């Protein structure tokens, strides 16, 4: 069996399950828009989108599927939530491993409307310090934003524990990296807002993502336009999910993501395979590993760098010599790298797929070892 040398699944997953292509082809063969028209073709394609919404609601433990709105990706979802809430003089706490999808809109809001945000107290690996967080809480805090799984070191934050600590303060969970790979139960964890994308852990195509809002009335839409409902009004409808879904949705993306959710995925490596590989890497001289301090907090993404080399060169050599595809640099997460002490050069990131086998992981670890400059 050919080795799977693609280790950039935090950027986008590859390969996709065959069902993704099948559902997309089937949709393209039949066509049809979402809502708008009243013939069977349109009804069937609309039903496809609603089936996707229902399946995602089950996946994420959401009791009211209409509170899930589709958009292009997590970034658009996070922008809709952060920019759609009237924070006034409230302040926002963010986790220390946030992506620019959170920090850039917040920085824009800081400059234009004076919204203040602060980084939550944390341990060295970016794990939120719950007791430190409690000390940061006060009546001005309007939201806590947490990247569920870091796209740099793979650390998984304890969402339920964080929500318990912050009580009634709303929590926005960025599930870009965790959705599909780690169980998420919005109801059980008390998640108020969840942003997700379809093309990473959920194994769907690019261009389809969305968000959940427990209290959709708290958010103003980001995009205004036609919804196929309440068409006589110049105002956006208040009914859900239409309030947040102006314009024709990505039907091809929805079909592909639905296909991914129907796929029966068997993970081709064990947890101990992954842990042993991390141990192997940790023993390589001159290699600095960026991962969770405790293995139970570790998702299947991590970073490393050789102390004597720029990560970009290491990643380039890994590909040239061994055909291994990784991502180097700052991973659009300078705050995370600042937290981990890996600025300014960043790291080489490795992110797994459920389709990686033990042999793939062994090949990866051996290749990283051989890629050391002075090997």
């Amino acid at each position, binding site marked *: 069996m050919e080795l799977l040398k693609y280790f950039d699944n935090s950027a986008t997953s590859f390969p996709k399950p065959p069902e993704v292509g099948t559902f997309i082809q089937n949709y393209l063969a039949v066509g049809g828009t*979402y*809502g*708008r*028209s*009243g*013939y*069977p073709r*349109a*009804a069937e394609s*609309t*039903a496809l989108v*609603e089936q996707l*919404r229902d399946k995602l609601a089950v996946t994420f433990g959401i009791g009211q599927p*209409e509170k899930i709105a589709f958009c292009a990706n997590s970034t658009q979802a996070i922008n809709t939530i952060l920019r759609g809430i009237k924070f006034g003089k409230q302040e926002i706490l963010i986790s220390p491993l946030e992506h620019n999808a959170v920090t850039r809109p917040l920085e824009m809001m800081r400059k234009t409307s004076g919204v203040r945000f602060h980084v939550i107290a944390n341990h060295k690996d970016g794990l939120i310090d719950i007791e430190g967080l409690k000390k940061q809480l006060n009546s001005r805090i309007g939201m806590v934003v947490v990247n569920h799984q870091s796209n740099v070191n793979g650390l998984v934050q304890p969402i339920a524990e964080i929500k318990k600590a912050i009580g009634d303060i709303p929590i926005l969970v960025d599930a870009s990296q965790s959705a599909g790979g780690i169980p998420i139960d919005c109801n059980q964890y008390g998640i108020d807002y969840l942003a997700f994308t379809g093309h990473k852990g959920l194994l769907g195509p690019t261009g389809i993502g969305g968000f959940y809002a427990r209290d959709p009335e708290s958010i103003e839409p980001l995009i205004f336009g036609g*919804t*196929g*409902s*309440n*068409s*006589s009004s110049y105002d956006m*409808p208040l*009914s*859900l*999910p*239409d309030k947040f879904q102006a314009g024709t949705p990505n039907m091809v993306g929805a079909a592909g993501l639905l296909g991914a959710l129907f796929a029966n995925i068997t993970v081709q490596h064990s947890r101990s395979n992954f842990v042993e590989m991390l141990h192997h890497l940790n023993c390589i001289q001159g290699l600095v590993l960026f991962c969770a301090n405790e293995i139970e907090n570790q998702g299947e993404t991590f970073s490393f760098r050789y102390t004597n080399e720029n990560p970009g060169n290491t990643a380039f050599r890994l590909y040239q010599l061994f055909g291994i595809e990784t991502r180097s640099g700052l991973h659009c997460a300078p705050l995370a790298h600042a937290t981990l002490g890996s600025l300014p050069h960043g790291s080489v990131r490795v992110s797994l797929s459920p389709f990686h086998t033990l042999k793939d992981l062994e090949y990866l670890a051996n290749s990283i070892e051989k890629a050391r400059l002075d090997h």
Partner: protein
Amino acid sequence: MTILLFPNVRMVIKAEKFLHQLGKVCMVRPVPTSISSECGMCIEIGNIDPESIAELLQNAGFNVTITKNIKN
């Protein structure tokens, strides 16, 4: 013709599926322009008592409005 109006297309699609599961004859169609439309899609029901259908839907959580005697 009697039609059922809903606030949005998601509810139309879910209601159609719900009624089919109960064995009720119905079909999705465009909202006639002669009436105030909430949505581009609605459900036309055949020779079924509209009130009983509406009750079924309302009990299942659907926000539905019945419009009777619509001419094509």
